[in-house]
């Protein structure tokens, strides 16, 4: 490859905040004082924090320089599997920044906060429709928070039947948040292996499902990027024993307008608005993890719920079987505004098209890289595909080496070493917002790296070489934790 995206450029060094402060500087304009000073109770008074004092210019340069050390969706392709790093539309930011929303106090009288309540109400309706479920709560603040809410719904449901259960079935391909969320509700995870086709087999579920098992957690499409083709049979088995089916909707981007989750037998599904519905990930949040449920679980959803009475939107606590509150207020409204703005910008046809193109992009990558990299499950994929480093083993080159090298070519690495069922996994999710040209360049870069693995493995062991920092010593960080400066 002659021209790669990745290059070296002028990047600034920048010290830590407190290495550059100087007493007597300030970066803040206080309002003119219009009230007198008042005495403070000496017993309670403290010294206040000893933060560095900086000028506004210091602060601006500091964080601009730091920002330039980050890879981001706005700078390039970010094919992190299961993370759906699609483009984050800028109009969404404008909508969320409107003073009426951004400055709104959560405890305003309801008749003075109709716009926000309407937005929550309508977004719940849209998500209910898109997933093919019956009702939605936007209160959970992130995907794992939605999972926890889902498990609390399971718990509340079984409790209402006066038959609490103690176990939950979790496939070996599940995200780590699944068993951790279940554990918070006191459920013991019973692992289940996917079959040789990479999906759940009804027989395996039949063998372990019993009347002490609250249900099963299924990610569909799963983390191998495969559609769980036996999902209806699995759901029937679980339902027959009085259990419930939880759907991890992290991968909803593959099936908008294509599959109704409700029709598959799923009872609770969480979504990640920061994946499928284009709100930015923020370097690790805030996200939003709504839960969508079937009719039979609606009474247990978190309160307050926004309901419509005549032409007014009202917060209602009148759901006696509700699991309670999961967020101090109503959830991450700022993220909801972005998702709402995205859905309205896309409309029904484009949402479906987004899923189609997300799958097309993944299928195209799978087809063109198969042979170059080992493809453990050569089957039609959905929005992501999973390779491994098996073909590079003879050259003593690992997945980690290859994805670090990918940085030098100007791409963010895919998700690696996950799902755990594929040793050395390379999980690629391009999303629909990458153009054919960018995808072709990604494929070329991956092929170049495979060639380098054969011809010059040292290059890969030393990668990345163009980034601000070279490979970091994670063992040292964990052995001698230095968590504050």
């Amino acid at each position, binding site marked *: 490859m002659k021209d790669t995206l990745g290059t070296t450029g002028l990047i600034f060094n920048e010290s*830590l*905040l407190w290495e550059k402060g100087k007493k007597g*500087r*300030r*970066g803040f304009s*206080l*309002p003119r004082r219009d*009230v007198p000073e008042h005495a*403070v109770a000496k017993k309670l008074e*403290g010294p206040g924090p*000893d*933060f*560095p004092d*900086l000028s506004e210019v210091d*602060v601006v340069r*500091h964080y*601009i320089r*730091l*920002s*330039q050390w*980050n890879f*981001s969706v*706005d700078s390039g392709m970010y094919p992190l599997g299961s993370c759906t790093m699609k483009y984050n*539309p800028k109009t969404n930011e404008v*909508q969320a920044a*409107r003073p009426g929303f*951004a400055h*709104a*106090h*959560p405890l305003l*009288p309801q008749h003075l906060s109709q716009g926000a309540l*309407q937005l929550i109400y309508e977004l719940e309706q849209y998500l209910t*429709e*898109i997933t093919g479920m019956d009702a939605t709560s936007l209160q959970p603040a992130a995907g794992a928070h939605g999972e926890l809410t889902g498990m609390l719904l399971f718990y509340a449901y079984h409790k209402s039947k006066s038959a609490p259960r103690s176990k939950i079935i979790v496939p070996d391909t599940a*995200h780590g948040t699944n068993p*951790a969320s279940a554990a918070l509700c*006191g459920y013991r995870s019973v692992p289940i292996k996917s079959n040789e086709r990479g999906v759940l087999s009804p027989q395996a579920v039949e063998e372990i499902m019993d009347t002490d098992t609250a249900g099963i957690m299924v990610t569909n499409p799963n983390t191998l990027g495969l559609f769980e*083709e036996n999902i*209806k049979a699995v759901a029937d088995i679980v339902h027959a024993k009085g259990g419930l089916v939880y759907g991890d909707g992290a991968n909803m981007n593959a099936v908008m307008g*294509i599959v109704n989750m409700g029709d598959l037998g799923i009872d609770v599904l969480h979504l990640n608005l920061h994946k499928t519905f284009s709100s930015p*990930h*923020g*370097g690790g*949040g*805030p996200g939003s993890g709504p839960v969508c449920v079937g009719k039979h679980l609606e009474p247990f959803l978190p309160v307050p719920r926004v309901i419509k009475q005549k032409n007014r939107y009202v917060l209602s606590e009148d759901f006696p079987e509700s699991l*309670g509150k999961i967020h*101090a*207020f109503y*959830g*991450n409204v700022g993220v909801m505004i972005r998702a709402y703005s995205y859905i*309205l910008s896309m409309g*029904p046809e484009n949402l479906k098209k987004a899923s189609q193109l997300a799958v097309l992009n993944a299928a*195209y990558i799978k*087809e063109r890289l198969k042979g170059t990299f080992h493809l453990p499950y050569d089957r039609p994929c959905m929005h992501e595909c999973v390779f491994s480093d098996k073909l590079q083993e003879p050259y003593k080159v690992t997945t980690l080496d290859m994805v670090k090298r990918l*940085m030098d070519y100007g791409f*963010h690495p895919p998700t690696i070493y*996950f799902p755990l069922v594929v040793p050395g996994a390379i999980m690629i999710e391009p999303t629909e917002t990458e153009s054919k040209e960018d995808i072709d360049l990604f494929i070329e870069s991956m092929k170049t790296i495979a060639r380098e693995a054969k011809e010059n493995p040292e290059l890969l062991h030393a990668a990345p070489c163009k980034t601000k920092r070279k490979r970091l010593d994670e063992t040292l960080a964990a052995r001698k*934790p*230095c*968590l504050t400066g």
Partner: protein
Amino acid sequence: MRYLPHTPEDIATMLKEVKIDSLEGLFAHIPQDCRRKEALDIPAALTEWELNDHMDEMAHTMATAPEYRVFLGGGSYRHYVPAAASFLAARSEFVTAYTPYQPEVSQGTLQAIYEYQTLTAQLLGMEVANASQYDGASALAEAMLMAIRVSRKKTVAVSRAVHPMYRRVLATYFEPTEFNIIELPYLSDGTTDIGALRDMDDLGGVAVQSPNFFGCMENLEAIKSSLPDKKSLLVVCFSEPLAYGLYKSPGHSGADIACGEGQSLGIGPTFGGPGLGMFAAKMKYVRNMPGRLVGQTVDKEGNRGYVLTLSTREQHIRREKATSNICTNHSLCALAAVIFMASLGGTGFKELARLNYDKAEYFKGALQQAGFKLSFSQPTFNEFVVAFPDGFEKTYQELLHKKFIAGLPLVDFYPELKNHYLLCATETTARDDMDALVKEIVQ
């Protein structure tokens, strides 16, 4: 659609490569009875112009300053965010990045969060802070679960003067567990009644909020010395961390865990979220902490750098044995907070805290002069409770018509506090507005 770059030719070429004849064909392997038959029934796509009009109309229905004079606090506060701070927190290199799993291309986020952890620990007087939780409520719930893990006991006590909504979330988290929550009443001065603590068995932790929901500072040292058992942890919660620019921090008052809401630090209220769950503890408890941690290390060339660390506590490694299920947290809000703290500096932080205090004290004085009584005598920070005479509810409604939101009626949260209202003044509250409100009430 401007977010979808594929031309019809691109689609045709790519389909040919994958040997499928149509976009629909990509889904042919999905069993027919799993396929959706009908089109999505949501509104047709809007142009950006139409979207702007629609959103503008909705946003305009919201009662916000300066059109309304809003004296609400209670867990969400109006503070001024410097232009430079909101500008920096909106940098798309920060906004559109993922969790920093690949440190070589995420040093910006990592160093910023390391700085956030450092300043947070300092503000709260603690030894270690994590990279954030969702909000004050989930931070409290995780803190109490951590107190149970550390102490290996089964009961926690929580003050009734802790934010009522945080207590409800805590109850939700505890519902499916075998652990118990005991509520501690409050005294007539507005602080927590710790009398019952001495006789409690199996107490893993005690949670109080300071400043509490009534705005009152708790006597933390006295609570710490009343803990019945050395193993019980003192958890100090907060919804207004700016108070520690004036008052002693939780750590300086004996807290084992300090947690709460950091929305005050440069984050807009946005109808209650996203906020910032702040979480800090003593270093000896670090391996029991929930959430992400950024640590300092070196790269291959010996240069200082930062990585996510101690992840053996976390769900992606430990799965069901993790200290928490948290994955995505509120990183961008933590970034906004550290930029805000850096902009203020130690000097500015103290000045801003003092101004908030003085505004509220002025407000109190003006109301007292007009003949109204404060409900509680304990010192407060920027909010406080006033006992209005019977029938004030009607006045409150009339004031809404005049675009005054005269605080938060407490009766919805505390049935015994009929006619008591929580009022808040920050640096954004002008003396003229407080005077105008007092004048309106008296009329």
